[in-house]
């Protein structure tokens, strides 16, 4: 439904820079977030990585977490795997209002009827956004975006000028609320490029705590604390901190990541290499979580 939570995958950007205002040949960026399982148009991710790798890395990051606000697609894979491994008591809350879903089939949207039947609770929007999210009950929110900057601010509104955009993207949905209220936010970006990891957002839809503070508003959460991409993992602890590279995938160099980043990316003193998925993680993903490979591509 929204870039907030439907899918951690950002809308793909048009190939041209700046985006063609009359470009009929540009791919469809609005909402083309490949959450539709039959959306087989997505290219294989670059960098030799895969949905499996991203899902495994994200799942490990959920260890010890109690509640996740997540969408469909990669977050489904990550949270389901986490429930089978590091976070057996993890509760997934969907933007549609569903808590404690027990779906009979793999859900295709955050509002899929199979998420409702047999769920533990279905909440109205005022309760979901007001009591659960703003009320402080969400440990981790998954977000996607078209652009992210080094403070973890996100753009999901427009490419170009808001008043006359090159590309009109879906907008906030609930992303701004997830950013403002979840204890921390994980961002999964399938493609780490200088255009999406940008020094200057075209538009800031969902601000992190630093921008909130500068606007005189007290932030309630830490903002983006982890970004998982096809090249590696970036982290920051909260307000006042930049994202820094803490791990690369096997075979990826620091130089590659810095080159793919639109700002002068800082690197952790001790850089790790991401532990590849274990056989057990892959088996669970492939056999239990998504045996029909709806999201595993």
């Amino acid at each position, binding site marked *: 439904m929204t870039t907030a939570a439907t899918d951690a995958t950002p809308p793909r950007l048009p190939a041209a820079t700046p985006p063609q*205002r009359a470009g009929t040949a540009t791919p469809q960026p609005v909402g083309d977030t490949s959450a539709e399982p039959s959306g087989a148009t997505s290219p294989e991710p670059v960098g030799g990585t895969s949905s499996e790798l991203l899902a495994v890395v994200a799942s490990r990051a959920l260890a010890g977490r109690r509640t996740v606000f997540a969408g469909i697609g990669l977050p489904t894979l990550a949270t389901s795997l986490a429930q089978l491994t590091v976070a057996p008591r993890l509760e997934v809350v969907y933007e549609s209002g569903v808590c404690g879903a027990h779906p009979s089939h793999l859900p295709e949207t955050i509002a899929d009827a199979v998420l409702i039947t047999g769920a533990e609770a279905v909440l109205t*929007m005022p309760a979901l956004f*007001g009591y659960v999210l703003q009320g402080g009950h969400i440990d981790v929110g998954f977000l996607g975006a078209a652009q992210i900057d080094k403070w973890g601010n996100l753009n999901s509104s427009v490419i170009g000028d808001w008043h006359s955009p090159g590309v009109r993207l879906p907008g906030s949905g609930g992303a701004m609320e997830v950013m*403002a209220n979840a204890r921390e936010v994980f961002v999964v970006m399938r493609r780490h490029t200088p255009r999406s990891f940008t020094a200057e957002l075209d538009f800031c839809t969902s601000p992190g705590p630093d921008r909130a503070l500068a606007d005189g508003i007290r932030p309630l959460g830490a903002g983006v604390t982890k970004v998982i991409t096809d090249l590696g993992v970036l982290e920051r602890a909260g307000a006042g901190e930049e994202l820094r590279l803490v791990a690369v995938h096997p075979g990826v160099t620091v130089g590659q990541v810095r080159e793919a980043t639109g700002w002068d990316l800082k690197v952790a003193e001790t850089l790790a290499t991401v532990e590849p998925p274990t056989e057990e993680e892959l088996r669970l993903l492939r056999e239990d979580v998504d045996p029909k490979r709806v999201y595993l591509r």
Partner: protein
Amino acid sequence: MDHVDKTMTMRDAIASFVQDGGTVALEGFTHLIPTAAGHEIIRQGRRDLTVVRMTADIVVDQMLAGGCVSRLVSSFVGNSAAGSLGELRRRIERADPDPLVYEEYSHYGMVCRYLAGAQRLPFYPLRSYGGSDLTGVNQGLRKVTSPYPGPDGEPEQVYVVPPLNPDVTIVHAQRADRSGNTQLWGLTGIQAEAVYAARKAIVVVEEIVDDEVVRSDPNRTLIPAHAVDAVVECPRGAHPSFAQGYYDRDNAFYRAWSHISKDPERLRSWLAEWVYGTRDHAEYTAKFGEEFWTSLAVGEALSLPVNYGRRL
């Protein structure tokens, strides 16, 4: 007490309550989207509407293509996760064929606008918007200083949104009685607040049921009769979205829409065939054929009853 029979045809309800230049809210978060009402608005050629809808999706793209809408108030503009809204993007990106005034909010910003509207409040505070560029392009977003000290003892600021009071709100639900006591289940979203915020409210339902059905479970009535002006029976009126327990989502249509709406000609011929070319929603649904509807049919998963008790 006597009951007022508020049942109307869709045609009469739209003709009575949706006026050119008015503000129309259509709500339903993925579930129970009032598509049939949107189509009837297109058929009746309404113009210059302000359309309010948290998730502006296919029905909004269609109303844009029908030339009904000059202003949109929303927090998400996209074809669910299935692709683009072609007409909406042409309108916003290129003013093609006409400009579209767009008021952009976040989801909770819209929720709070409905909450303020339903409660006759001058504003509603929320914890979003601090540092967002939306505050630069949306003059509705303002700040208030709390009269209580913040956690650090200093004055605390918070953003607020203004109330939203549509001229008419249209929602779709599973069932209602003839006076408008409306029951919905599954995802219930913002429907009750959108109805209470409105000057007039139209409830479109899968079925009108006997009073006894509603009264067997009064907690299920999320929209009481006193908030409703018209009840329209319109089975399958939420297609291509779904009605929990009645029919499933038409995912193929969502995917197809991205292609249909990408091409203005194709979009207009779709409208000609499926909206202008059908007299009403009954004709629209019949055109799909029974086999199609069978493919969206759902099985039974009944709620267990609760006891309301009876004085002995």
